């Protein structure tokens, strides 16, 4: 057991830190959250800077330990989040890399890495949330095209995306998991309607995407027809892997700021609050260790994140919600003011036990696939 950087990691960390020190001051001002074209441009620009500096591939195929160093250092330096590049770098890209043809890799991967194209995700549907395999968006083969009709939901960045990784049902007669196909859909194809979806935080982070006889070239299919479920699982394992590790660093920073605010407004005098902050500090320290442990395990097993991601996500989701509930305790009445720090974050933290697999689904995964408990009737 060793927590010290390897030679590779140490070198990477030093170079990255130095580069961040120079690069971050040159960034343009952050766009407002509602300015979608601005956000797209900002996020792509940041990815381009990373690419030019030799870091464009980090989320992609760097060793897990190096990637953890990247997450830690960028978060500590206050660098931009992956943002609009999330699906391209963490979902669609790795899927294409693993399952695509040579031609597909050549077409789709470089623009993702160079910060030129944005991808969005067309998986969930109104009737297929936790039960993703219940998806009903249909695709019929028509010559060298698929014709797609249906609707998708929870699609981030749909308004500004160039591509959508789309799951469709190509064989409605087959068992649920065996009639699904993975397609790359150009978002400027006729027949696509994007309707922004307002969240409880008041913003429009997601969209619904309606597809009305949308024609997708058959060579945009990744993997075999009706083999999309297996292709998808490759992608999801990335989402549940180390995707949240960087946020633990951010949570520890928030915790320090909360302690400062409590000292400032007098609530620090309440020993129960201090204890709650201390408990959270232990929680995030341990979660960071767990991230390191899981990353080392992934490294040892060839770089594929395992089921341990579900364990991490279950605990982290709870801890993040506790953190922002504690922030509300620190703020008192000010916790009702959306213009105060942490208040909006408290609202978005509510999604952590729901998005990317609810905590209930994660407990099923842990119970059945790690502990070997039966599925039950």
């Amino acid at each position, binding site marked *: 057991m060793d927590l010290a950087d390897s030679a590779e990691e140490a070198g990477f960390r030093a170079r990255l830190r130095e580069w961040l020190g120079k690069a971050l001051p040159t960034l343009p001002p952050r766009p407002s959250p509602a300015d979608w074209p601005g956000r797209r441009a900002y996020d792509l620009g940041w990815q381009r800077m990373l690419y030019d500096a030799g870091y464009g591939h980090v989320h992609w195929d760097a060793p897990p330990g190096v990637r953890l160093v990247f997450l830690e250092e960028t978060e500590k330096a206050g660098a931009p989040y992956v943002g609009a590049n999330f699906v391209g770098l963490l979902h669609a890209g790795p899927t294409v890399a693993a399952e695509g043809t040579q031609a597909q890799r050549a077409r789709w991967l470089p623009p993702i890495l160079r910060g030129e194209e944005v991808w969005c995700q067309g998986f969930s549907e109104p009737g297929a949330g936790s039960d993703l395999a219940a998806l009903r968006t249909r695709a019929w083969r028509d010559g060298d095209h698929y014709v797609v009709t249906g609707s998708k939901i929870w699609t981030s960045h749909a308004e500004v995306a160039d591509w959508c990784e789309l799951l469709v049902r190509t064989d409605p007669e087959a068992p649920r998991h065996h009639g699904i196909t993975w397609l790359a859909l150009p978002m400027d194809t006729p027949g696509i309607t994007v309707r922004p979806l307002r969240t409880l935080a008041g913003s429009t982070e997601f969209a619904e995407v309606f597809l009305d006889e949308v024609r997708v070239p058959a060579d945009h299919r990744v993997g075999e027809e009706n083999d999309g479920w297996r292709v998808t699982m490759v992608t999801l394992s990335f989402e549940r892997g180390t995707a949240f590790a960087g946020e633990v660093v951010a949570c520890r920073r928030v915790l320090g700021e909360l302690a400062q605010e409590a000292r400032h407004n007098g609530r620090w005098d309440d020993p129960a609050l201090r204890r709650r902050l201390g408990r959270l500090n232990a929680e995030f320290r341990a979660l960071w260790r767990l991230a390191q442990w899981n990353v080392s395990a992934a490294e040892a097993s060839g770089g594929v994140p395992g089921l341990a991601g579900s364990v991490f996500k279950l605990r982290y989701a709870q801890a993040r919600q506790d953190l922002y509930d504690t922030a509300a305790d620190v703020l008192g009445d000010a916790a009702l003011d*959306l213009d105060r720090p942490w208040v909006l974050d408290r609202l978005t933290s509510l999604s952590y036990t729901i998005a990317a697999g609810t905590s209930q689904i994660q407990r099923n995964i842990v119970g059945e696939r790690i502990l070997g408990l039966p599925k039950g009737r």
Partner: protein
Amino acid sequence: MRFQLSGDQRALRDGVREVLARRFGPRELRAAADRPPALDRALWRALGDAGFFALRLPESEGGVGLGLPEAVLAFEEAGRVLLPGPLIATHLAAGRVPGAATGEAVVTAVDGGRVEWLTEADVVEGGGGRGVAGSGAVALRSVDPLTPLHRLPAAPAVSAGPEAVPDPVAVLLTAAEQLGGATRACELAVQHARTREQFGQPIGGFQAVKHLCAELLVRVEVARAAVYGAAVTADPADIATARLLADEAAVRGARDCLQVYGGMGFTWEAEVHLVLKRAWCAPDVPGAARRVRSCWRASCCPERVAGASACTDGRRPGGVSMIVASTDHTA
């Protein structure tokens, strides 16, 4: 002992429920959440006509002459539909502020460092010369779209000075509203669990969801017993208990309801978030620790229990027995 609603109380509750369903159903709630906060004056007057504000005012003063238990039932229904507005302040002002009893005047009150519905109110009570009506109050961007809030700049620091003792009736009526919110959360969760299907069955068939719903109900039922009990006794420790358990039932209930709703609950369209935000906005939710202390003090220190009369409505000293006895009317 007959700790159940009387026939009259049931009729009163049903009457309030019927009026509210007609005037402020889910459609009106969603519409209200989609526009800048503004009070529906016609609805306010309709509430006045129905006796909502004058409920506890003696008949000799033109009121309905009912007591705390009836008021609790009415405010529970208001909480259940997330009825917006400074209902409690206006109710408490009935008979003292002209027009409050009839719903012609909207009365709000300063609560610690904040005021709700300041710009819509005709009368602002309290504030101790901190210039509420003047230029001092600052609008904040309220987390609840249906509870506009102003902050008072000269609010005392959190830990300074002795605690202000809130009006026990206001605390109890807030508990009643929270109980209503908790009930709504439970109803929404159960309805969703019954109808939403995943993996080929209603999600309420899965124990993970079913047991969340069961715990929602348990919290509601325990809070209900505490709130109704406090309405009968008007005992300060009972009131503190009621508020504590009703707050928990509302906040945790809304959270669990959101979990049952899954992604749909995260949308603005679903009303779940409004239930949660309203529960957060109840006055002094962070003051739970203080209320725990008062639960304890009042019940364990005999000298505090003697102070129970402090809990009855200030306008009517010794009014507890009157409140308990006067159940002969309906709104």
